[in-house]
């Protein structure tokens, strides 16, 4: 009996005791929209060398400087730091939160490029809908100079190439994201009849965040039907991304010197290793401006 009445007192007392708690619990039950798009699958619009699923927000402009430095093989040169370098100056602009356009010019290789990318689907924080983000990229390039000499160079129409990519990425944990990118590359001309003007490739890219501002990234592109007239290898990159406020710094080791997708995916003539001629050090700096 004693225990029963004690229990009753406890039961009566409990609601008074928990009133403070229940106010927060009541707020907890309020129907607020907590479902949102997953933020920051990757840090920039490029994972390392290739496009990431990320687009830029509306009215933001990014000014980018991309560069590669390498040594020429079998040459004991007097060059300062590296024998050769190559750069691309680019602009990326967010027309809307889903649509980003960009253009760039490469020196000294003389490649002009432009692209647009559109977010078809986004991964949600509560895992509703599809479990990954999908972005479509369409890029086009114009080569003003010969690079590895696989395209005809008779008139303007011979020097073009286009790349279509479907980027499918998932942020698995807060630190780890992975992307698979089925890619179609079309080149308007080939010198050798052995070379198919159309290439199918698939890219794999991963990011692992080591701190809130630094991540390690890697990418590899597999080409299903590579060029026949020259030996090519899959483009590979291993690097680190460092976000310093408005500035994204990307450092990488890679096996290619070209910044545009059709170039590095299908025309990487070096395998990845650290010997002179094969080893390319890359540095990208991207400055973010809110307009």
């Amino acid at each position: 009996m004693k225990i029963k009445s004690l229990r009753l007192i406890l039961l009566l007392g409990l609601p008074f005791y928990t009133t403070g708690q229940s106010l927060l619990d009541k707020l907890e039950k309020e129907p607020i929209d907590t479902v949102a798009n997953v933020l920051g699958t990757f840090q920039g619009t490029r994972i390392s060398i290739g496009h990431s699923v990320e687009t830029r927000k509306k009215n933001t402009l990014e000014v980018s400087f991309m560069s590669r430095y390498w040594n020429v093989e079998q040459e004991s040169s007097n060059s300062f730091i590296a024998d050769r370098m190559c750069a691309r100056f680019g602009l990326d602009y967010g027309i809307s939160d889903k649509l980003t356009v960009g253009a760039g010019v490469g020196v000294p290789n003389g490649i002009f490029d432009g692209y647009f990318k559109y977010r078809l689907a986004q991964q949600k924080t509560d895992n509703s809908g599809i479990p990954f983000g999908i972005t479509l990229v369409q890029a086009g390039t114009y080569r003003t100079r010969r690079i590895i000499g696989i395209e005809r160079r008779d008139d303007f129409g011979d020097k073009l190439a286009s790349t279509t990519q479907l980027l499918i990425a998932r942020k698995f944990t807060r630190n780890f994201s992975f992307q698979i990118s089925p890619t179609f590359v079309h080149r308007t001309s080939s010198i050798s009849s052995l070379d198919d003007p159309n290439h199918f490739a698939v890219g794999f890219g991963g990011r692992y965040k080591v701190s809130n501002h630094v991540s390690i990234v890697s990418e590899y592109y597999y080409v299903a039907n590579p060029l026949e007239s020259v030996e090519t290898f899959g483009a590979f990159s291993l690097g680190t991304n460092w976000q310093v406020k408005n500035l994204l710094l990307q450092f990488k080791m890679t096996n290619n010197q070209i910044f545009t997708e059709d170039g590095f995916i299908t025309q990487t003539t070096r395998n990845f290793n650290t010997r002179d001629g094969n080893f390319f050090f890359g540095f990208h700096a991207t400055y973010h401006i809110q307009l």
Partner: protein
Amino acid sequence: MNKTLLLFLFICMKSFSQNTEYIERQGEVTFFSYTSVENIQAKNSQTLSILNPKTRQIAVQILMRAFVFQKSLMHEHFNASYIESDLYPKATFEGEIENFNANDALQTKLIKGTFTLRNISKPIEIKATISKADNSYTIKGSLDVLINDYNIKVPALLSPNISKKIEITFNFNYAPYEN
């Protein structure tokens, strides 16, 4: 039998007492970080708060993703690197208004309670102005929060850009809670 009746009576009483609560669903919370290098400001207009004038209790829930910045990159960094809203989506406050008189038209009181941000709870005191209209209350005030208290890490390189002390202002308009 007697006991069930008592319990029933008690539940009735409890639900009756709930009718005295007031709610705000679009409360405004703004924070400022002033430094000589850069001023950062963000506003949240979806803050939830509930007030019980009878028990003088107040509770607030702030959704961290809902802070709107002038610069989209700041929103991304705020959520991803500083507040880590994927791990800690909400900040909460619960407390009591000291010497609160539910019928005064205008009063300035101290609210004492616990503020929880990034799962770290600290006791805080907020000086607030409380005004009462026909069947609604308005509570306004401001407080300072030290980022060190809530283990918000700022890289040394960026420490000139982000103030150690963040000023938070709020403005809540409460209407009767309809359950």
